[in-house]
């Protein structure tokens, strides 16, 4: 951020005193300085905007607000579109061939190559046009959405595209900003408004923007029309978090910063309306300048295909070479009837210059054999994939999530088959595996546990143990709201008063209601008020307090107001005010948060909540029994996958507090190391605590996650969890998802080990020993922040440790793998160690170790590291990777992986925008990979190999003929046969197979996930497959060619007439078309009506074509051939014999293969051969069968318990770090502070935002 600060400083010249940071404005509104005189920004690149003055701005010729994301317009469509098409090598190749076929060396007429090429181009261009048309429509909708623009003292509703720089606009609540605006005024007091930037960076928490004090009044149209300011600001750029400029208003220069700017694409929240003036429009807005072209990914299969094509090209060249040598040898004057010694304009057959003959023959033969490269392959594949993604993936009811009304979305159609080959999945945790929906689930007060819910994890565990626990319908009277999923009559509605320890309950609820940094918003009633919290955990806890009857409804910087029920007697409601004396912030080192408050009656209490380890260390001695019971309960909660927190309090005497508070104030006002000093001081008072109890919050796993992960791992897919969370939380979730279990050998590489701490201590003890004797027992956990030890030494030590660990674990892993125990391995590594492990010298060891593990958990990793890990596996191991995530912090990894999947859920759209596929729920991965991915892979392999086969066969028949024509390059088939072979006679069936073929049904694909392994191993499209196919191709072409020409030796009718070249080639072509079409049927696993129609239709199309063609074109050799042929018995015997002989080998191969080396899918087909495929199965809503709660409890009680030593931890604020911010080197402010700051700003607010509907 310093970068632009300096820039703004220098721009404002010597006036450095006022060059305060524009950011500071909202922290301290009075800092908006007033400067006299006009100061022109000196930088060459700046723009001046005259507000509310269209004429003045007209001179500057700013771009309009209309945006166009289309690739083409009417004029550029053809040239640009064609250029795009010819960037493909295959198309360029055919263009060259087409050009060659216009020269006299060509044995074929130009139409042979021009027609298929133009058809292919036509189809591609139509597709491009269609897509561009959709973009255009999208643009038009956006450009035509209306905005209120100030015109003649009135708000006029005009379309966005009419908006110009300098216009004053009004945007209402929940509306989108039409351009980058300077905020002038807001209906909220203090000129504040809230924006949601989810469209920009995926962050869902609201951002505050604040208008300059000078402009607060321009709310009404009458007033706003008086506004005549002049804005000097930077030129449009793509940096979302910076803005520098000045507003010159009434001859005063006011500095502008990013906090005054409302960006296009964001929406207005919690504010009735705002008034702003337009600074950047259309393509110059920050969001548009950020709209990067997502790098288009190509699938591995396609890249493999390129190699095959290259091989084919090699084959083509060698065929040409053979032919050309033959031709050069053959040409001779002895063939007097050819008159080769007479040369016209071509030296093609000049026997006296055999080298020229050789060279020209190469060109001749290339044009002749060009169909060996299947021209329609790419366009067919594109078409197939397009339909697969738009019709199948997008429409799959199994992947439709009805709660959020989200169907699956394939954002690219390039990668369908890549989904069938994924071997590594990199998953984000929060929001992906879990719902990021924290719910208060259970609690324990004074050793008594409350809450009756069963977590999904427990259900999952139960299912694995064979006990079927159905999801239970909550009793209708149970309170259920966002953040609160708790049901126990003993605590609700004041019933806690009858519990053994009501005083503790009261403390428990008060602690929840007071000790937090949550901000209430909206009307002060329990139903309408909403809590704004830095982390959903906090909100859940406060919501819980509300439901227990301790309703926190107002906060000022010094006070917290709680409406308490049933405190003095049942049913009585009273408002209580607590003075907040100090807030000891949560941070990741402290792992706790405390509040010192004063009751109305003067009682001084410190409430503290935090991770169990931290709290237990600070408890007063005594009541060991309670501690033990609570610890057991914590462990139980942990097993159930809940995030636990301990609550404690300490009564303070005024003396102790006063003396401490002095130190606290000192620390707070210190300029250096403030954070560290605050932490130290906090230690002094957070001790001798009394345990109240603990809370258990469920970060609910998304529905079906454990079973999905289990299915995927059975499919041979390895799942890595990359999370910003702490090690413990990550491990917990990993356990919960059954990524890790206690039978696994775990390798933990953590920076939080005793050895590393020791080093950190050793380095710092030297400094620390004198000062902090009293708190020596807490040093271990505090060290990292307390002492800025010798970082170099620490780094070296960690590096050594990581290196040793890696090598040790690697050896261990190798011995386990080669051993017979069959133990599975797992690796847990934290971000800090990962940083060292990703060092080039250790990278290969890390890779090899992690590849031998069946699950890997990386915690505390930054978005960049996520991407690095993904790339490590992608490049290093050359495996196909898939990244799945939901937040902006996953964008890097989503783009780094072969396939990026975004969860279109709650956390904004950033991940989805960067992804290739978007699904609503993690569990839909099963369908996406095992069903769609597998089928797509299978189908495309078939399509590709079939294309390869049919064109090779066709060309080879031509090649064999070359040997019998004196290598002259005489074509065997008529031009039109050759050009229509690819685009009509064999085109449609293969597309049908590419769309409809399926080996086993969707439900079986999921029932036998192991079938997926064939995709991972690429069993359907490798050199062996291609080679086998090539052999069959050679065989079939020999059969077709030789059987056809065998008919030329004698007359074939009783009239003794002989057949000519074109008769025979027509017969051969007929046999070929029948053969290759039947061959396709033999490849099918399923034969639908469409298969028969397309295969039959293709053969029929050939006959119809030749019947007409043979009559219409009198001047061609093919005139009447088919009728001549049909007059012979020979022809009918041939079209039966040839296809059968040609396909006999394939048939035998398939029979033997199935009998002796059956593939898995074939066995599965056989197992289920008698079952009719359930139509519509699995699409009906599942799980609406209700089981009585008793039954469930009983079933649950029967479960064998799986012990785990892990307890849950809470208080992870989800990894909200902005990906863009970190890329820009900008750090976003700490969230808790943000909230508190907001509180202090909003103290006067009685906002009119009650109408939240």
């Amino acid at each position, binding site marked *: 951020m310093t970068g632009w600060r300096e820039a703004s400083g220098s721009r404002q010249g010597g006036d450095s005193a006022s060059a305060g940071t524009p950011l500071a404005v909202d922290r301290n509104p009075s800092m908006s300085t007033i400067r006299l005189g006009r100061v022109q920004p000196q930088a060459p690149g700046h723009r001046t905007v005259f507000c509310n003055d269209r004429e003045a701005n007209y001179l500057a010729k700013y771009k309009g607000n209309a945006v166009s994301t289309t690739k083409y317009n009417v004029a550029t469509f053809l040239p640009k579109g064609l250029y795009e098409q010819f960037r493909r090598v295959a198309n360029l190749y055919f263009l060259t061939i087409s050009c060659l076929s216009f020269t006299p060396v060509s044995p074929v007429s130009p139409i042979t190559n021009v027609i298929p090429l133009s058809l292919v181009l036509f189809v591609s261009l139509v597709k491009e046009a269609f897509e561009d048309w959709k973009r255009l429509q999208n643009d038009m909708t956006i450009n035509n959405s209306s905005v209120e623009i100030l015109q003649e003292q009135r708000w006029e509703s005009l379309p966005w595209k009419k908006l110009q720089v300098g216009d004053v606009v009004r945007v209402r609540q929940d509306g989108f900003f039409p351009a980058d605006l300077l905020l002038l005024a807001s209906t909220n007091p203090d000129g504040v408004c809230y924006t949601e930037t989810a469209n920009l960076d995926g962050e869902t928490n609201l951002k505050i923007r604040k208008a300059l004090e000078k402009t607060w009044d321009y709310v009404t149209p009458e007033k706003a029309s008086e506004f005549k300011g002049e804005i000097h600001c930077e030129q449009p750029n793509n940096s979302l978090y910076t803005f520098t400029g000045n507003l010159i208003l009434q001859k005063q220069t006011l500095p502008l910063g990013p906090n005054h700017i409302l960006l296009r694409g964001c929406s207005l929240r919690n504010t009735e309306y705002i008034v702003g003036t337009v600074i950047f429009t259309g393509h110059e807005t920050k969001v548009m300048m950020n709209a990067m072209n997502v790098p288009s990914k190509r699938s591995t299969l396609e890249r493999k295909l390129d190699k095959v094509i290259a091989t084919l090209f090699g084959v083509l060249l060698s065929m040409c070479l053979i032919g050309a040598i033959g031709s050069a040898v053959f040409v001779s004057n002895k063939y007097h009837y050819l008159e080769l010694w007479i040369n016209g304009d071509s030296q093609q057959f000049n026997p006296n210059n055999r080298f020229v003959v050789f060279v020209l023959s190469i060109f001749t033969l290339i044009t002749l054999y060009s169909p060996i490269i299947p021209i329609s392959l790419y366009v067919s594949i594109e078409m197939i994939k397009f339909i697969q993604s738009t019709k199948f993936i997008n429409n799959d009811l199994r992947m439709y999530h009805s709660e959020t009304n989200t169907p699956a979305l394939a954002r690219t159609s390039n990668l369908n088959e890549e989904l069938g080959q994924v071997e590594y999945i990199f998953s984000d945790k929060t929001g992906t595996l879990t719902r990021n929906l924290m719910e208060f689930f259970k609690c324990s007060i004074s050793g008594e546990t409350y809450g009756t819910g069963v977590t999904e994890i427990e259900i999952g565990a139960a299912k694995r143990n064979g006990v079927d626990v159905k999801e239970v319908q909550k009793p209708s009277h149970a309170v259920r709201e966002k953040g609160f999923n708790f049901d126990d009559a003993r605590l609700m509605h004041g019933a806690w008063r009858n519990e053994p320890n009501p005083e503790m309950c009261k403390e428990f609820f008060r602690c929840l209601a007071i000790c937090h940094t949550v901000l209430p918003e909206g009307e002060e009633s329990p139903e309408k008020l909403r809590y704004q919290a830095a982390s959903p955990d906090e909100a859940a806890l406060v919501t819980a307090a509300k439901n227990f009857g301790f309703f926190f409804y107002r906060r000022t910087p010094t006070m917290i107001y709680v409406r308490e029920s049933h405190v003095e007697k049942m049913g009585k409601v009273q408002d209580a005010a607590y003075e907040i004396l100090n807030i000891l912030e949560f941070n990741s080192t402290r792992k706790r948060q405390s509040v010192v408050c004063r009751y109305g009656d003067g009682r001084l209490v410190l409430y503290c909540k935090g991770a169990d380890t931290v709290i237990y260390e600070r408890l007063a001695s005594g009541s060991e029994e309670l501690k033990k019971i609570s610890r057991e309960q914590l462990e139980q909660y942990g097993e159930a996958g809940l995030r636990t927190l301990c609550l404690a309090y300490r009564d303070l005497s005024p003396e102790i507090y006063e003396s401490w508070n002095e130190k606290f104030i000192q620390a707070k006002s210190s300029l250096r190391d403030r954070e560290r000093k605050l932490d130290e001081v906090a230690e002094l008072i957070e001790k001798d605590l009394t345990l109240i109890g603990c809370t258990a919050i469920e970060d609910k796993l998304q529905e079906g996650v454990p079973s999905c992960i289990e299915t995927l791992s059975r499919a041979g897919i390895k799942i890595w969890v990359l999370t910003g969370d702490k090690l413990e939380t990550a491990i917990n979730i990993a356990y919960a998802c059954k990524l890790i279990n206690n039978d696994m050998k775990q390798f933990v590489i953590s920076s939080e080990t005793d050895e590393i701490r020791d080093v950190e201590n050793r380095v710092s003890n030297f400094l620390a020993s004198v000062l902090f004797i009293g708190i020596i027992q807490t040093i271990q956990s505090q060290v990292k922040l307390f002492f800025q030890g010798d970082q170099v030494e620490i780094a070296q030590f960690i590096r050594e440790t990581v290196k040793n660990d890696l090598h040790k674990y690697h050896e261990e892993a190798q011995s386990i793998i080669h051993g017979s125990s069959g133990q599975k391995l797992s690796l847990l590594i934290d971000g800090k160690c990962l940083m060292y492990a990703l060092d080039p010298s250790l990278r290969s060891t890390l890779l090899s170790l992690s590849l031998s593990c069946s699950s890997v958990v990386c915690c505390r990793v930054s978005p960049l590291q996520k991407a690095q890990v993904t790339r490590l596996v992608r490049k290093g191991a050359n495996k196909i990777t898939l990244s799945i995530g939901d937040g902006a912090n996953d964008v890097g990894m989503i783009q780094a992986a072969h396939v990026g999947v975004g969860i279109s859920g709650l956390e904004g759209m950033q991940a989805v925008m960067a992804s290739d596929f978007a699904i609503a729920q993690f569990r839909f991965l099963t369908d996406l990979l095992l069903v769609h991915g597998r089928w797509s892979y299978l189908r495309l392999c078939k399509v590709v190999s079939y294309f390869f086969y049919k064109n090779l066969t066709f060309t080879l028949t031509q090649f064999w003929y070359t040997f019998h024509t004196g290598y002259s390059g005489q074509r065997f088939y008529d031009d039109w046969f050759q050009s229509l072979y690819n685009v009509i006679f064999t085109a449609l069936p293969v597309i049908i197979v590419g769309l409809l073929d399926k080996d086993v049904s969707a439900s079986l694909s999921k029932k036998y996930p192991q079938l997926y392994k064939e995709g991972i191993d690429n069993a359907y499209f490798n050199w062996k497959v291609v080679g086998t196919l090539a052999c069959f191709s050679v065989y079939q072409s020999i059969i077709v060619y030789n059987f056809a020409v065998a008919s030329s030796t004698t007359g074939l009718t009783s009239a003794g007439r002989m057949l000519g070249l074109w008769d025979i080639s027509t017969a051969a072509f007929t046999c070929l078309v029948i053969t290759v079409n039947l061959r396709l049927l033999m490849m099918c696993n399923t034969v639908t009506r469409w298969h028969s129609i397309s295969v039959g239709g293709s053969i029929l199309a050939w006959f119809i074509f030749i019947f007409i063609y043979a009559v219409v074109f009198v001047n061609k050799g093919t005139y009447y051939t088919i009728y001549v042929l049909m007059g012979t018995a020979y022809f009918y015997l041939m079209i039966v014999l040839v296809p059968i002989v040609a396909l006999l080998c394939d048939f035998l191969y398939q029979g033997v293969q199935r009998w002796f080396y059956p593939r898995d899918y074939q066995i599965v087909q*056989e197992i289920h051969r008698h079952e009719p*495929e359930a139509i*519509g199965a699995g699409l009906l809503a599942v799980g609406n069968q209700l089981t009585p709660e008793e039954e469930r409890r009983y079933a649950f009680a029967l479960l064998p318990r799986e012990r785990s030593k892990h307890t849950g931890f809470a208080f992870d604020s989800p990894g909200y770090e902005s990906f863009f911010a970190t890329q820009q080197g900008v750090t976003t402010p700490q969230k808790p502070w943000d909230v508190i700051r907001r509180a202090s700003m909003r103290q006067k607010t009685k906002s009119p935002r009650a109408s939240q509907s």
Partner: protein
Amino acid sequence: MEQKNKNSKKPSYSRFSQQELPAWKPILTPGWVIASFLTIGALFIPIGLVALSASDTVVEIIDRYDEDCVPDAYSKNPESFIQDPDIKKTCVRSLRVPKKMVAPIFVYYQLENFYQNHRRFVKSRSDKQLRDPEAKNDTYNCFPEARTADNKPIVPCGLIAWSLFNDTYKLSTRGKPITIDKKGIAWKSDTKVKFGSNVYPKDFQKGGLIGGAKLDEKVPLSEQEDLIVWMRTAALPNFRKLYGKIDIDLEAHETVKAEVENNYNTYKFGGRKKLVLSTTTWIGGKNDFLGVAYITVGGLCLFMAINFILLYVFRPRRLGDPSYLSWNRLPIA
């Protein structure tokens, strides 16, 4: 930005989009394999036998005469013999009839190592000119036999017509000449459409080089059946062309005297010339290929079927045995 869409985004159900189209799911079980092989065998062998026996009834006499018809004096240099217009080219061959040949008997000439399918040769013709008297100047493709030295279009132009075969045969038996009927030796489609009844040869064989047969300028092309037959270019360098037909039966062991006018120069490129007399049946001339192919394939299929039956007996595989699944086959530690 159009989030306000109140309609559900739930995809509508269709069997196509849910990929549940009704389908036949064939499984290539051993039963199917055996049955298919048996069926093919059972069908093909009879067809093959019928075809072969049909081919067997055909009587064919082949006589190669190009070498024998060169006088011994020229045997070292047959080209000088064939190119010398003053030497008499007549040569008498006697053919023995092996079996009774029932009329119609077809007379063919067979050329070998003659590349009628050479690219230069195939394209050197003008179909338009052959059909349409107006198009006599359409000699674009006819290089190098397109025009005479004084640039008059040759009708019919091109190498194919120019190289028209010009050996002639006269047959006689027991001293009686046998009439060779030259009508109807070409395909109807050629005589009716492709060769015009009002197109007459013009300036034919008047180019610089001496070609093959000459044509009667009074006879329209559609009646020049030798030319029509010749111009239906053969697919392979060894080919047969119909010369005419005989309408009398030839008895077994009879000797047919063939008087060959040996004009056509195949000596330069080492080609061979043969005279063929053959009867036909419903599958045409003597062609064992089809019958043999059918019988071989049928036999192979039967053989395969037997093998598969034996395999089925000795190494059966239970259909749908889960133990064959790869993950069940792997040893589980």
